C-alpha cells in the first residue's frame, strides 16, 4: 500500500500537468489545425483542365507544335489526365514525310528530349483546328454528337489552363494561315465561360509575336494572363537543329519548359516565379503578365494549381470486402435461343447474283401510246390548218 500510493499520486500529478499544458496551448493547437485545414481549401478548385492549342500549319512551324507538346508533357507529368486535356494540333509534324525521325518531336537540339512520346492523344487535329471549334470548346456550345474526349466539361470549381501558340499580331492570332481570332472575340468567349460558370480560375498563356495584345481586352474576373512579348515586339525562336532543319522551339516556352521540369506535384513554387521566367536577356522580347482581374495574390497561387491536378484523398478505416459470391449477377444473363438451322457466311463475290441484280428504275417514261397519240394529234392539226394537198410535199 505504501508503494502503490506514491505511484498513484505520481500518475495523478502527471495527468494534472498534462491537462494544464493542454489547457494553455489548446487554442494554439486548435489554431494550427484550423490553419492546416484552411490551407487545404485555399485554392477553391476541385479539378483541373487544360486546353492546349497550336494554330500553325506547315513544316517550318515545327516549333509551335513542339511548344504545345512540351506544355502537354509537363501537364501530364504533373497529374492532369488525358481525359481532362483538350489538345489541338493544327498539323502533324511527327509523322510528316519531312521528319527524318518519324513519330518524334524534339524540343532540344541534338535530339535530346522527345516531347511526343509514346502515349499521346490529340483531340483536334489538322483541319479540325479552327476558330469556330476552339470557341465552341471553350463555351461548351458543341454539337451533340461530339465525343467526350473533344469536350471541355469543366464546372465552376475547375481551374483551366489555356495555352496558345502560333503566329500573331497586334490584337489577333492566326489560325492555320486562313483565319484569325481577335482579342475581343477571346475576351467575349471568356466572359461567356464566366457567365456559364465554366471556370473557377483561368490561366492564359500565349507565346506569339505581340502576345500581350491578346490579353488586353479581358474583362472577366479570375483570369491571370502571361504572354511572351509586348505589343510591338516579336517572340523569337530558340535554336535550330541541323539534322531536322527547322527551329525546334520558341524561347519563351523553352525556358518555361525548363522551369516546369523542376516542378513536381507537391512543390510549393508560386506564380511570381513563373513571372520571372525568361528575362529580357534570355528571351530578347519582354514577357508580360496581367493579374489585375485575379482575386488572389499571385504570391499565394501555386504553379500546381493550374499545371497539376488536384487529388483530394479521403482516408477511411472501414474495410470493404470484395466477395466473389455475386450470386444472381451472371444469372441475369439472358438465355440464348439457338438457331434452328445453321447460319452461314455470305458469299464474297456472287457473280450470278450481281449480274442479275436489277437496279430500281427511277425515271418515269411516258407510255408509248401517249406519244403516238400526241403525234397523231399534231399531224391532224397540221393538215386541218393547211389542207390535205400538202401531204405529198411532206412525204
Amino acid at each position, binding site marked *: 500500500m505504501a508503494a502503490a500510493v506514491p505511484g498513484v499520486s505520481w500518475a495523478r500529478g502527471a495527468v494534472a500537468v498534462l491537462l494544464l499544458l493542454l489547457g494553455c496551448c489548446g487554442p494554439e493547437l486548435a489554431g494550427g489545425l484550423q490553419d492546416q485545414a484552411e490551407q487545404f481549401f485555399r485554392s477553391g478548385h476541385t479539378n483541373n483542365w487544360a486546353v492546349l492549342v497550336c494554330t500553325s500549319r506547315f513544316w517550318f512551324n515545327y516549333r509551335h507544335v513542339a511548344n504545345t507538346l512540351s506544355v502537354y508533357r509537363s501537364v501530364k507529368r504533373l497529374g492532369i489526365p488525358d481525359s481532362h486535356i483538350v489538345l489541338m494540333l493544327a498539323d502533324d509534324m511527327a*509523322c510528316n514525310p519531312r521528319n527524318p525521325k518519324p513519330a518524334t518531336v524534339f524540343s532540344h537540339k541534338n535530339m535530346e528530349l522527345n516531347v511526343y512520346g509514346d502515349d499521346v492523344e490529340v483531340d483536334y487535329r489538322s483541319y479540325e483546328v479552327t476558330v469556330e471549334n476552339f470557341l465552341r470548346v471553350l463555351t461548351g456550345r458543341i454539337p451533340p454528337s461530339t465525343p467526350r474526349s473533344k469536350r471541355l466539361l469543366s464546372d465552376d470549381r475547375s481551374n483551366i489552363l489555356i495555352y496558345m501558340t502560333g503566329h500573331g499580331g497586334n490584337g489577333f492570332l492566326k489560325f492555320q494561315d486562313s483565319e484569325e481570332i481577335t482579342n475581343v472575340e477571346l475576351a467575349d468567349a471568356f466572359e461567356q465561360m464566366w457567365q456559364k460558370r465554366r471556370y473557377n480560375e483561368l490561366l492564359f498563356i500565349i507565346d506569339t509575336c505581340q502576345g500581350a495584345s491578346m490579353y488586353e481586352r479581358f474583362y472577366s474576373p479570375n483570369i491571370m494572363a502571361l504572354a511572351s512579348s509586348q505589343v510591338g515586339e516579336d517572340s523569337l525562336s530558340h535554336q535550330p537543329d541541323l539534322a531536322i532543319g527547322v527551329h525546334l522551339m520558341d524561347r519563351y516556352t523553352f525556358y518555361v519548359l525548363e522551369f516546369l521540369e523542376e516542378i513536381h506535384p507537391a512543390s510549393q513554387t508560386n506564380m511570381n516565379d513563373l513571372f520571372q521566367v525568361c528575362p529580357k536577356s534570355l528571351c530578347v522580347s519582354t514577357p508580360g503578365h496581367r493579374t489585375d482581374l485575379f482575386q488572389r495574390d499571385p504570391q499565394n497561387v501555386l504553379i500546381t494549381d493550374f499545371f497539376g491536378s488536384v487529388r483530394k484523398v479521403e482516408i477511411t478505416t472501414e474495410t470493404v470486402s470484395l466477395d466473389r459470391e455475386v450470386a444472381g449477377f451472371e444469372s441475369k444473363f439472358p438465355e440464348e435461343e*439457338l438457331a434452328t438451322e445453321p447460319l452461314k*457466311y455470305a458469299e464474297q463475290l*456472287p457473280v450470278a447474283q*450481281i449480274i442479275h441484280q436489277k*437496279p430500281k428504275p427511277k425515271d418515269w417514261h411516258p407510255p408509248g401510246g401517249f406519244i403516238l397519240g400526241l403525234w397523231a394529234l399534231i399531224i391532224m392539226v397540221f393538215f386541218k390548218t393547211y389542207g390535205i394537198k400538202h401531204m405529198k410535199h411532206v412525204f
Partner: protein
Amino acid sequence: GGMAAAALLLLLVAAGPGAGRAGSERERLDALREELLLSPLPTGDVAATFQFRTRWDADLQRGAVSHYRLFPKALGRLVAALGVRELHLALTQGFWRTRYWGQPPLQAPAGAELWVWFQPTVTDVDKAWKELSNILSGIFCASLNFIDSTNTVIPTASFKPLGLANGTDHHLLRYAVLPREVVCTENLTPWKKLLPCGSKAGLAVLLKAERLFHSSYHSQAVHIRPVCRDASCLAVSWELRQTLTVVFDFFSSGQGKKDWSLFKMFSRTLTDTCPLASQSKVYVDISPKNKEKELLEVSPPPTSVHEAIVQGDKKTYAVYDLLSPSLFNTSRSLNVQLKWKRPQDSSEMPIPTLHAQRYVGGYGLQTGEICTLIYNTHPYRAFPVILLETVPWYLRLYVHTLTIITKGKENKPSYIHYQPAQDRRRPHLLEMLIQLPANSVTKITIQFERALLKWTEYPPDPNHGFYVGSSVLSALVPSVTAMKDMDVEQSPLFTSLFPSSDGSSYFVRLYTEPLLVNLPTPDFSMPYNVICLTCTVVAVCYGSFYNLLTRTFHVEEPSRGGLAKRLANVIRKFRGVPLL
C-alpha cells in the same frame, strides 16, 4: 405469400451455386489469341502482321450485357447501341506495292477507311452512320467526323459481309474513305489500349511507335463481326480482330542488309506472354521459292513447323509457341532471327496473279483522265473482278468517255452501277464487274473536268492538292493448290480472314494508289489587294473632289501670337525692324 416466398428462396438457393458455377464458366466465354506473322518479301523488305483476336461467346445484340472482360467495353457498347452488324475500320500510312511484294494478307487504302453493315432493325441508317463515325473519331483520335454524305457511298456489289449474314440488302451498308487522314502515334495509343494486356505483355510489347512509323507501310485495323461459335454454327459469337501490318524497309531500317531479327525491326524482343491469351504464336514464312530447298534459316529453332495453303499456294511456316515452356528455358527473351543461306537472285521475283495500278493523265487545270490498269498474269485462267471507284464531286466524270480495253479490243463489263455525283452532296460511284482474260492487261479510262470551288470551301493548304480515294478491286483469284476446308479454331489467324466457299479460288481485295489532283486554285490574297487598291483610288480621287466641292473658305484673323512672339516684336520695335 408464404408459398411465393418459399419458392423464391428455393430458386435463389438453387441459382446460387448454379450461378456461381455458371459464373465461372461464363468468365471463360471470351478468349484471346494473338499472333505475329513475319514474311520476308521478294525485294528484301520484311512484313510483320500482328493479329489479336478476341472471341466472345455472347450475343451483343440481345440482352443487356454489362460485364465486359476481354472484349473492350467501348466497342461492345457501340455495337449494341447503334445496331452494328459488322464494323471495319482501317488507318493506313503508305501503300502496299502488290507488284513487288506479292498479295497482301489484308490490305487497306491510304488514309482512313470505314465500312459498316448495320442490322436490319436500324431504321435510320444515315443517322446511325453519322453517330458511329463521330464516336469512333473520339475513340481513335482520328478526324473521322469529316465523314459525311460527300464521301460516303453505298456499294451494291463489293464489300459483302465477312461475318455471318442473313441476307445482303446493300442499303444497310455504308463505305467511306478519307485519303487525307494522317496516322501517327495518337492513333496507335488508343488502339493499343483496346488490347486486353495493353502493350505491357505478350506480343504487343513490340509495338513501339518510333519503329512502327519508320516504315514503308503501316496499317492498323479493327474488325468486328459475328462468327460461328462452333462447327455446327447454330449460335453466334462476336469476334474482334485488331490487325497491324508494318513493312520495314530494306534500306532505312535494314541498313542494306537482308538479315532481319525482332530486335532489328522493333528494337525490342519478346520476354513473356500475355496471361490472358489462350494462344500466342509467332509464325515465320520459310516457304521455299521455286520448289527448291529452303533459303531462309531461322534461329532459335522453332517449336514446330506448320504447313498451310494460304492464298492458293502451299506455304511453310516456322512456329514459335510462346506458351510452350521450352521456349524461354535457355534465355529470358526471344529474338527471332532470319538469315539467308545464300544470296537471293533478284530475277526470281514472283509476279502476283492480280495486281493493278492507277494514275491521272492529261495536262492543265481543266480536264484530266483517270486510268486504271489491271493485270491478270495467270497463264490460262480468266476470272472476274469488281472495280469500285469513288470520285469526289469536284471532279466531274464524263461517263460517256468510259472505255475498257483488253488486248486491243473493247471489253464490256457484265454489270455496271453508276451513281452520278450531286454537287456538294454526293460523290460519284462507279462499280463494274469486268472479266479479265488470262495473261492480259485491262485498261480502264474515264475523263473528268475539274470544278472551281467556292473560295470558302478550299482547305487551308489548297496548293497541296485534293485527294481521290483508292479504288477497290475484289476478285476470286484461282488458286495454284486447292484449299481444304479447315477448322477455324485450329488454323492460324491469318488464314481465316476471309470466309472461303470452295478451295479452287481465294478471295482477295486490292486497293490502287490514291490520286492527288490539283484544282484551279484562286490567289487568296486578291481580296486584300483589291480592297487596298480600291480604297486608295477612292481616297485619292474621290476624296480630293469631295474636299474641293464641299470645303468652304473664310478669312482667318491673324492671331496675336504667343508670348515669345510678342517679346520678339517688342525687341524688333526697339531695333526699328519690321514686326513679325
